């Protein structure tokens, strides 16, 4: 009976990604944090290594691997010493580009997906607006037909990679809300950021994830060609609901893997740090605290792997994905908070990574649909 989803090929992939992360990414994490900017070379370098398209078919610049290959990448990126980097790469690989592969034309795949996999184009996903987050139907960014194309007006906010993106996979209203078709009238577009009227209005200052650039975008009479429409017109709501599954799942994978990293760090510290004549790991309460967390992480990982397995086989289980997102996000922050407690004063000091992780991990309970939104999804699917 198999007890792990990973094969020898995955193990080999993991080893080489780990080397890359430790040698090429981790040494710069501190600097990126201080700069509020991940170095630009990261994207083309990861593209060159084939890491941006592990699960994408080879004809579109990917590696043709299964979803477990992506899981390996997401897990290993948590070793880079920055929450921002896995998020930025996750947007590139698992949030902004899967809809292109899933819904795009051959031309769109060549123009956007292939360079995104090479890391020569940076991708963003544009859903949230100043007055609409998980309530996607409330978005106001509006595309109006104009000749063969569209003219778009509106704002998008909290857009990861948004300051430097080459294109944004954007959710836009294309028809007025119709009570008879509540899910209609919304469409996806691939919008080049160098179009006239497209403006990065602000680089947002955040409590955590500080190395990641997060933008407020303004679109004023942005002329968009007809072939920028991604998928079927007015069907964007369903398309973005599909997109969110991959987004939440990759977030949950990273959340669990990040929780393990944090836990390992706390374990090592409590073994080393002495108080009252012995390592604090020697105190029973510390031991039990660590065991409680390990148990929760192991359980969350088991559920997330079930969801990954289903996703890898083409199943579309919205309830389980929401559960994974909910527990992984909560757990990542809980483990970070407990780790801060176990580190005492060092945990609160900027000198160590503990506080950065504490700030970074807090986002998971908000982004990609807040905890409360996940509970709404789950309870609805329970028939409540």
């Amino acid at each position, binding site marked *: *009976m*198999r*007890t*792990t*989803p990973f094969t020898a090929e995955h193990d080999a992939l993991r080893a080489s990604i780990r080397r890359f992360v430790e040698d090429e990414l981790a040494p710069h994490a501190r600097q990126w944090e201080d700069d509020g900017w991940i170095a630009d070379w990261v994207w083309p370098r990861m593209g060159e290594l084939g890491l941006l398209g592990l*699960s994408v*078919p080879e004809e579109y610049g990917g590696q*043709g*691997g*299964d*979803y*477990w290959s992506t899981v390996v990448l997401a897990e290993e990126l948590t070793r880079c010493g920055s929450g921002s980097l896995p998020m930025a790469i996750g947007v590139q690989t698992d949030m902004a580009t*899967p809809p292109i*592969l*899933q*819904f795009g034309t051959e031309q769109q795949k060549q123009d956007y997906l292939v360079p995104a996999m090479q890391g020569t184009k940076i991708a963003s996903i544009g859903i949230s607006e100043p007055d609409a987050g998980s309530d996607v139907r409330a978005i106001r960014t509006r595309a109006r037909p104009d000749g063969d194309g569209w003219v778009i007006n509106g704002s998008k906010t909290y857009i990861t990679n948004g300051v430097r993106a080459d294109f944004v996979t954007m959710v836009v209203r294309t028809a007025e809300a119709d009570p008879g078709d509540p899910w209609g009238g919304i469409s996806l577009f691939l919008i080049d950021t160098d179009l006239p009227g497209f403006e990065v209005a602000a680089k947002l200052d955040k409590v955590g994830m500080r190395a990641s650039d997060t933008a407020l975008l303004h679109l004023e009479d942005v002329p968009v060609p007809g072939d920028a429409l991604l*998928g*079927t017109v*007015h*069907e964007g709501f*369903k*398309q973005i609901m*599909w997109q969110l*599954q*991959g987004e939440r799942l990759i977030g949950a994978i990273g959340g669990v893997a990040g929780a393990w990293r944090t836990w390992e760090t706390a*374990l090592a510290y409590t*073994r080393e740090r002495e108080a009252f004549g012995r390592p604090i*790991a020697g105190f029973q309460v510390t*031991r*039990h605290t*660590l*065991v*409680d967390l*390990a*148990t*929760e992480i*192991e*359980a969350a990982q*088991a*559920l997330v*792997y*079930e969801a990954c*397995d289903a*996703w*890898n*086989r*083409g199943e*579309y289980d919205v309830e*389980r994905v929401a*559960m994974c997102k*909910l*527990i992984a996000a909560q757990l990542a922050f809980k483990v970070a908070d407990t780790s801060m407690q176990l580190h005492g004063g060092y945990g609160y000091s900027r000198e160590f990574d503990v506080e950065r992780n504490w700030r970074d991990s807090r986002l998971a309970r908000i982004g990609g649909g807040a905890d*409360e939104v*996940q*509970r*709404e999804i*789950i*309870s609805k699917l*329970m028939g*409540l």
Partner: protein
Amino acid sequence: MSTVNLTPAPRADEPAMPLFREEHDALRDSARSFVEREIAPNVEAWERDGSFPRELFASAGAAGFLGLKFDAEVEGSGPDLLAQAVWVEELARSLSGGVAADLGASTDLAAVYIDRAGTADQRAALLPALLRGERLGSLAITEPDAGSDVAAITTRARRNGDGWRLNGTKVFITGAARSDDIVVAAKVSADDGAPSDDPHGQLTLFHVRADDDGFSRRRLPMMGWRTSFTGEVTFEEVRLDDDRRLGEVGSGFGHITAAFAWERLAMSLGAVAAAERTLEVGIAHARDREAFGRPIATFQVWRHRFADLHTRIRTARALTYQALRLVVAQAEGDPDIDDTQVVRTVGMAKLLTQRLAFDVADECVQVHGGAGYMMEYPIQRAWRDARVGPIGGGTDQIMKEIIAKTYGL
């Protein structure tokens, strides 16, 4: 008009870690209908009586549910641990902790020890009757002053000619107030052949029959599990022939340790299934019961609390199934599975699931309001029964110590 394809690529046809097979799904159907037919309708009456008919063992045995993890040579239909897992889950859905406990004590405890430690003759003599449900078994390890700390056991077996004399008292022994075959852990001194003076090295298993001279017992009234014949058993100069010894002298601790994994896993499987059933009962009540002009299930706070519980149940099941995979792989002789991994994951499952089952029951008592506190509603039984989970089979605190050791803590 919709042409959206909602299927992600790339695909793989087979699950990465398959668990149950088609025959297990069929078994689940028949186990569920057995429980719904033979047990569930009677649970309330049995609970009031503080008893359930001994014949239930025989009917479960006749239906084949007691022999799933045993060889054909002892009249089992296995060994199939996955099939046993299915039965444990379905039995737990009866929401009678007492019935599940006593049936489990016979098959998942006593019979497992006899199967593991016994000789071919002992297995042939004892197991078929247990698996047919004609005789009832129980396992006696815990004592008034020794629970998880098995080294502190004081029950002693002394050489007596070719046989043994057994003295001691065991408590909290599930099913023992009416069982026929009792597996007993006792200490044998080095003078009597134990391989060492180490307390663990003295532990030896014996088979005691309820009609042996010097054996006495009393039933222990309990807060929950009220249909269970949990009891205290006392051995006063009980004379046993040497063929009542199960396994080598001094081998008891090894057998106990080896059997823990299944015991804890079975508890985990049962707790998750019971939690799931309890939540169904709680939600049904919340849909039914109106307050301020609408069903309380429609209030957002309750919807979210139910969502959290449902999420915790699914998560706990995923962990429990991972523990099951490890136990099955180890039983299959997979060289990549080390014991530390099994002990750790099973311990985690036990720890997480027992507390979960109680938390779910407590929330479901809460959603019942005043009715939740009334004996006429079954939800209080789930609450009382679930409370033993974090105590029995090694307390939560013991589980944490065991898991901590696997990390070198």
